């Protein structure tokens, strides 16, 4: 009797056990996919970059002062390109940091809820504008403005690149910095206000310093985004031959050639297997390493922040307070001296003295002004930053809309291009973009959700989760052009898939995977632990709990992540440029065929089809509407989700 009862129970258990184990393994595999991808990218870039290091040596490659791969003799000096990348990024940060931190403070501390609900999505919409659209705006409006305003021969300069990259980095920095500021404990703020500090004093002396490491991480992530940007920089920076460093180095009106622009321009035409080809992969490797370092730095800082929040106990500082103060003073003194030295060299003695006196005067004036007025001033300045950001957004949107609206009609959306896209519509491109994003999401969503479920439900925080998360963060920071090169080397050439829909879909899937992992994890975090405990108490297994109890309430959050991923995939040009795209009235019927896509259609019209201005603007508008529409749905969903999340 006993045996008879036990046997079926045991078999059920085993079946269940196998299922549970199986799921765990599957989830683990999807969790490590991010790491596998990042390693295969590094390996494949290195594989194709190695010959150039071998032939001309790593040292000469890194320190060579001229990039002239087709000259006689060919010169492969990456140094000016690296410097240019850093300079453009530096300029972008000078513009983006004050604007984004001001915006972040405004959104989290100053704005009323009603204003916040409009402003926050507006800043996020800026992230939704495809970089190729930014490029066109920059090429036509920004460079002309710079040329006329500053009376320089050409507007395609370091300044143009920095302004454009600065605008593009604003949403990244703002959203991370805003999270950091919002997560400063309420008690800090209340305590400060209770002892009689003004709102501005509270913000400047309590909130911002407490959120400092989060803000630092935000800035570093912004730097990562700026370094990796390709299409926009390629279009507005001028790209001088040999990639010369500006003379003098502070000359923001000099054209400049970055690593990404060099890749974007030269990759298509280069002879596969030539030294030049290997050198380009060398550049991609350098670019990847720079962004990896930047992103690891951000991860480390954010990680330390989280640890600090977890442990309230104060550790004894490694350096004593006094010593730390001294270091700080020396540091400021050093920076001051350098700035003064640069000023002195560039503008001469008299203006330098003038500027220093003025700064001192302003400093003392600011100290004398009453607290109330100080606050007014500061709040006005902060409001000004957000207004500037909104103006940027407005100008770009207005430009694209006013130019593109003339081309827009029902036929434009539903018919194929005729006469090489000069007339007719863009139906195949729309369908192609839909195919690409559908495939990308079909690959990335299961992988990303699996990875997030494994990270959040199956493992305790430890070395494995840390490695996996770092992998996902690094993948997130990988420049899109690097994905493009990897896709070309791996799918198109190594796996011999050729230019195909499949290659494009997988490349895009890799790119959006980290977004999905991150948003899914956030969604899982919002599901209360008590629900899981209740499910276990009723005898459900782990996988049953996840499947029936945890995932359904997290679904809207996961959906938001998926939509953000779709938005990013729909607007990207660089990853599909060398892997998937075809230009024509062509609708693919198999995944092994190439595909047309909106960003590429726009890119080709603008670069290779003379006399297609009207349809260029129309395509840009449709692409913009599509991507912004997708983002808008995501934002609406999120707001809906947040309202409902009252357990």
């Amino acid at each position, binding site marked *: 009797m006993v045996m008879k009862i036990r046997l079926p129970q045991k078999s059920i258990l085993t079946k269940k056990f196998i299922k549970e184990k199986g799921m765990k393994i599957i989830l683990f595999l999807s969790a490590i996919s991010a790491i596998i991808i990042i390693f295969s990218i590094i390996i494949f870039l290195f594989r194709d970059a190695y010959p150039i290091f071998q032939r001309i040596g790593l040292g000469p490659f890194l320190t060579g002062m001229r990039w002239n791969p*087709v000259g006689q003799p060919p010169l492969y000096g990456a140094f000016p390109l690296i410097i240019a990348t850093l300079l453009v990024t530096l300029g972008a940060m000078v513009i983006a940091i004050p604007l984004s931190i001001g915006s972040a403070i405004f959104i989290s501390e100053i704005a009323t809820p009603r204003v916040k609900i409009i402003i926050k999505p507006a800043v996020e919409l800026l992230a939704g504008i495809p970089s190729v659209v930014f490029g066109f705006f920059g090429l036509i409006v920004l460079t002309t403005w710079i040329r006329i305003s500053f009376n320089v*021969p050409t507007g395609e300069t370091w300044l143009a690149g920095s302004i454009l990259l600065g605008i593009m980095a604003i949403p990244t920095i703002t959203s991370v910095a805003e999270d950091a500021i919002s997560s400063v404990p309420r008690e800090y703020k209340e305590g400060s206000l209770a002892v009689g500090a003004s709102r501005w004093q509270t913000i400047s002396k309590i909130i911002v310093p407490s959120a400092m490491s989060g803000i630092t991480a935000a800035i570093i992530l912004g730097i990562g985004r700026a370094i990796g940007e390709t299409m926009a920089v390629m279009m507005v920076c001028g790209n001088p*031959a040999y990639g010369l460093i500006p003379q003098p180095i502070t000359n923001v009106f000099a054209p400049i050639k970055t690593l990404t622009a060099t890749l974007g321009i030269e990759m298509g035409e280069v002879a596969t297997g030539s030294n030049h080809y290997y050198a380009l992969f060398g550049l991609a490797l350098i670019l990847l390493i720079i962004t990896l370092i930047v992103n690891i730095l951000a991860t480390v800082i954010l990680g330390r922040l989280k640890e600090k929040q977890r442990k309230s106990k104060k550790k004894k500082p490694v350096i004593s307070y006094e010593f730390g103060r001294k270091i700080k003073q020396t540091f400021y003194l050093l920076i001051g001296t350098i700035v003064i030295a640069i000023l002195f060299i560039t*503008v001469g003695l008299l203006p330098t003295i003038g500027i220093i006196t003025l*700064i001192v005067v302003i400093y003392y004036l600011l100290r004398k002004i009453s607290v109330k*007025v100080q606050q007014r001033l500061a709040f006005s300045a902060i409001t000004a930053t957000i207004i500037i950001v909104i103006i940027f957004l407005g100008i770009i949107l207005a430009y694209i809309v006013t130019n593109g609206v003339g081309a827009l009609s029902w036929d434009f959306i539903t018919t194929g291009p005729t006469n090489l896209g000069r007339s007719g519509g863009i139906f195949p491109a729309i369908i192609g973009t839909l195919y690409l994003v559908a495939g990308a999401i079909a690959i990335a969503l299961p992988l990303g959700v699996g990875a997030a479920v494994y990270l959040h439900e199956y493992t305790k925080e430890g070395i494995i989760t840390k490695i996996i998360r770092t992998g996902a963060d690094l993948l997130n920071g990988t420049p899109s052009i690097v994905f493009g090169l990897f896709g070309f080397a791996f799918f198109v050439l190594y796996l011999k898939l050729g230019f195909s829909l499949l290659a494009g879909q997988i490349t895009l899937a890799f790119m959006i995977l980290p977004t999905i992992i991150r948003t899914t994890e956030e969604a899982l975090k919002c599901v209360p632990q008590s629900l899981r405990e209740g499910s276990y108490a009723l005898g459900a297994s782990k996988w049953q709990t996840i499947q029936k109890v945890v995932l359904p309430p997290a679904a809207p959050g996961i959906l938001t992540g998926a939509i953000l991923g779709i938005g990013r995939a729909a607007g990207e040009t660089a990853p599909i440029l060398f892997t998937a795209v*075809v*230009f024509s009235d062509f609708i693919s019927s198999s995944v092994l065929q190439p595909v047309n896509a909106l960003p590429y259609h726009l890119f080709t019209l603008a670069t290779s089809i*003379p006399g297609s201005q009207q349809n260029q603007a129309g395509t840009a508008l449709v692409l913009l509407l599509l991507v912004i529409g997708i983002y808008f749905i995501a934002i609406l969903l999120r707001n809906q989700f947040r309202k409902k999340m009252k357990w």
Partner: protein
Amino acid sequence: MTIYNTIEYVDKVYISFILAITLVIQINQQKEKQKIGMLLISLLVIFILGATLFSGCVQQQGQQGQSIVLIGRDSTSGTREFFWTFVMGKANFSASLLEKNSNGAVQQTIAQTPSAIGYVGLGYVDSTVKALTINNITANVQNVLAGAYPISRDLYMFTKGNSTGAAKEFILFMQSIEGQAIVTQEGFVPLQNTVHYNVSGKTLSGTLTVSGSTTVLPITDKVATAFKALNPGLMITVTGGGSGAGISAVSQGTVDIGMSSRDLQSSESNLGLVKHVIAKDGIVIIVNPSNNYVNNLSLAQLKAIYKGEITNWKDLSK
């Protein structure tokens, strides 16, 4: 730095003025108003000084004439390789050459930049740019065909070994009178001594893939549409990606035909590819329509400009 320039700058910072005024209006107390006023004035002075610093860089460009902005193609472009060999005699370009990765980008830049000069394919000349004559010969199809216009180059298609089947027919169609009509239509220079395409009894079927140069892409795409009309059962896909990508794809066998705007390079010579010339491209020197300095250049002048020996338009308009 003249005072006039400084004033011009102040004029351009009207946005800061508007902001400043709103700031002052916000403040009620008279005392504070004065302090804020002083603060703003000092900020303004800093701004002007900054502007002076900026314009210091601009000043070096010289007041008379306009310095030439050199626009060229990227180092891997077939157009540049040709220009470099034919016009420059393989001398190095000036370091101030700005590189664009397409004809369209060159045309766009020149249409927007008054002092720019660049070279593009014949198809890209329209009212937004001014074409220069070279040695007093206008760049057009007739002059290129007659051999009078000095700067033109070939466009190619490559097949792995001798072309067969659909690839062979397609290239034959492209080189025929019918195909060359489309070449002319797209602003390229047709081949000479062409014959009518011989439509054989049975139509082709299966697939044909073409990939490569973005310069050749438009013609191929249009010819493909016409060829498909003759052979409804044939599936043709034409992809871009660039000459290098096309050549490597055809040598690997992932596509049937590779398009290229340049000849094979040394690293590609042993891939077993067969070259087919399918059209010519006249290279036109263009400047901004507002450029009143020149209408004609000699090849020597062109070389001097691109070598960086002539850097100001006024040196050309004597």
